[in-house]
């Protein structure tokens, strides 16, 4: 019986070891300019927006896609939409070189993402939820880890 209990403890510890990073992963949010007429967005819709295939919101406003140059948040976002950053770069380059779309506006920090999305009509970006400050006019339309 003692052996079984030991096994149970070890199993729980192992599970905790593997699950802890997930629990500790930052809460990420997809944000838009406050005037964007969207309350939530699916992964498929995010893919359409970030692959630059969807260029307008439903009210006809041009979408401005905002991206961060690097960081864990960026990795988490591309994992969430099921693509690698390199794969996405290739799509952006192809669209840019055929004149079909301009690549996303790339900024250095998540704070800059919030500032840019808040200031640009039709803009969309992703940030760590902790980056959001009160007084910034953005709307959260999706959450992921």
């Amino acid at each position, binding site marked *: 019986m003692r052996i079984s209990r030991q096994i149970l403890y070890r199993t729980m510890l192992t599970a905790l070891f593997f699950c802890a990073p997930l629990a500790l992963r930052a809460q990420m949010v997809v944000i838009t300019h406050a005037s964007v007429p969207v309350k939530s967005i699916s992964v*498929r819709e995010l*893919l*359409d927006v970030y*692959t630059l*295939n*969807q*260029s*307008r919101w439903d009210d*006809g406003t*041009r979408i401005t896609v905002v991206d961060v140059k690097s960081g864990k948040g960026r990795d988490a976002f591309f994992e969430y*939409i*099921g*693509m*690698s950053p*390199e*794969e996405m*770069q*290739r*799509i952006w*380059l*192809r669209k*840019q*070189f*055929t*004149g079909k779309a*301009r690549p996303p506006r790339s900024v250095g920090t998540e704070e800059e993402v919030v500032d840019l999305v808040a200031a640009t009509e039709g803009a969309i970006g992703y940030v760590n939820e902790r980056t959001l400050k009160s007084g910034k006019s953005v709307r959260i339309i999706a959450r992921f880890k």
Partner: protein
Amino acid sequence: MRNPALLASSLLALLLALQDAPTAHAQDVGDMRVFGSMQSLFMHQYSYSEINIPEARLSLEEKESRNTFAIQQLDFFFDKPIDDAFNAFVDLEFQLNYSSEKRWGSLSIQEAWLNYSYNDAVNLKVGLLFPAFNQYNEVKNRLAVLPFIFRPMVYERLLAQRFLTEDFIPEHAYVQFSGWLPTRNLMLDYAVYVGNSEASYITSNHPDGGIDTDLNPNFEFLSGVDPTDINLKLFGARVGLRSPGERFRGGLSFTRDANNMRERFGAQKPYFSEEAIRLMPDDAKRYRFGIDLSHKHGDFLVEGEIIKVVYDLGKAERKLDLSFEQSFVYTLVGYEMHERLFSFISAQWGDYSFGLDADYFTGTAGIAWKWRDDITAKAQWVLYTERMENVVNEDGLHYGQNTRLHFFLLGLSVLL
């Protein structure tokens, strides 16, 4: 501006004036964005040719090797958003160490168009443009987004002596409607377009030498414009499907235009009887059919294209059973060894029959290493073989020819 050297230097001065951040991918000038790409190469070529003349029981061999450096291609793009609905785009291309002074290479406008976007499903492009045909036609000169040094044969301009591009693909169009519609799991692409007749109508070789710029010299008021009527123009379409992350792409393409037989007969006359030449139309209706497919699964990429070109030779076809067809098949298997390292092998083959009977095969393997975001190093080996039977020279001598070419290529592709 008639002087090409002056034009080139003015363009360069303009670009230098616009450029104040040397490491930027694209330079915003007001709303206009200027960017570009160039690819330089080193090529070692080994050629072997064997000619068999059955009548003379003679076999001749010829060998040659050469090495060369070149700026294979340099493109500058100008992208100007006019408002939310309109944008303009220009692609200027320099090829092969362009120098007007030394008469090397070329400078050309590859694209110059205005796009009106009503929404993602309805776009209208007007101007000189690459129309949608299979998956490569719209990016055929965008070497920076392709892993190749030598592109699939019918798209490779350095092989223009072997493959007249317009025989296989629509080079340019002038008006195109296009867009995409969402379906449950995929995106449905469409494009329909119209363009000029092939370039040989605009500038063709005169039988007595020199250049013809009109079908009827009595009405030769303008040069450099298409002199043909509407029934010879290019009409084409493509419908395709894409997955949202674009790992799957596939489509069907079709064009209809005309082939300038006056031009083609210059080289092909020895193959035909007087009657065949009399019955052959001056303008043969030409139909191109295309299928393309691309699928990325994990680290593997599989893609292919098929192009079939069929000509309507009118009375000559019905009375003399003449036919003229061309085909091209391209297949590629790629493997992403690392997110910045892509390797591929490709096989391409096809045939053509127009008097002489010929077929060809290309095997190629290569690697593209994205050293930095803006610099990609490439290496490629290409084997090209061609077999021709029943070739006739000007003296009426029949012979067969086998040609084998090896290319070893090293290239650097740079985003500007």
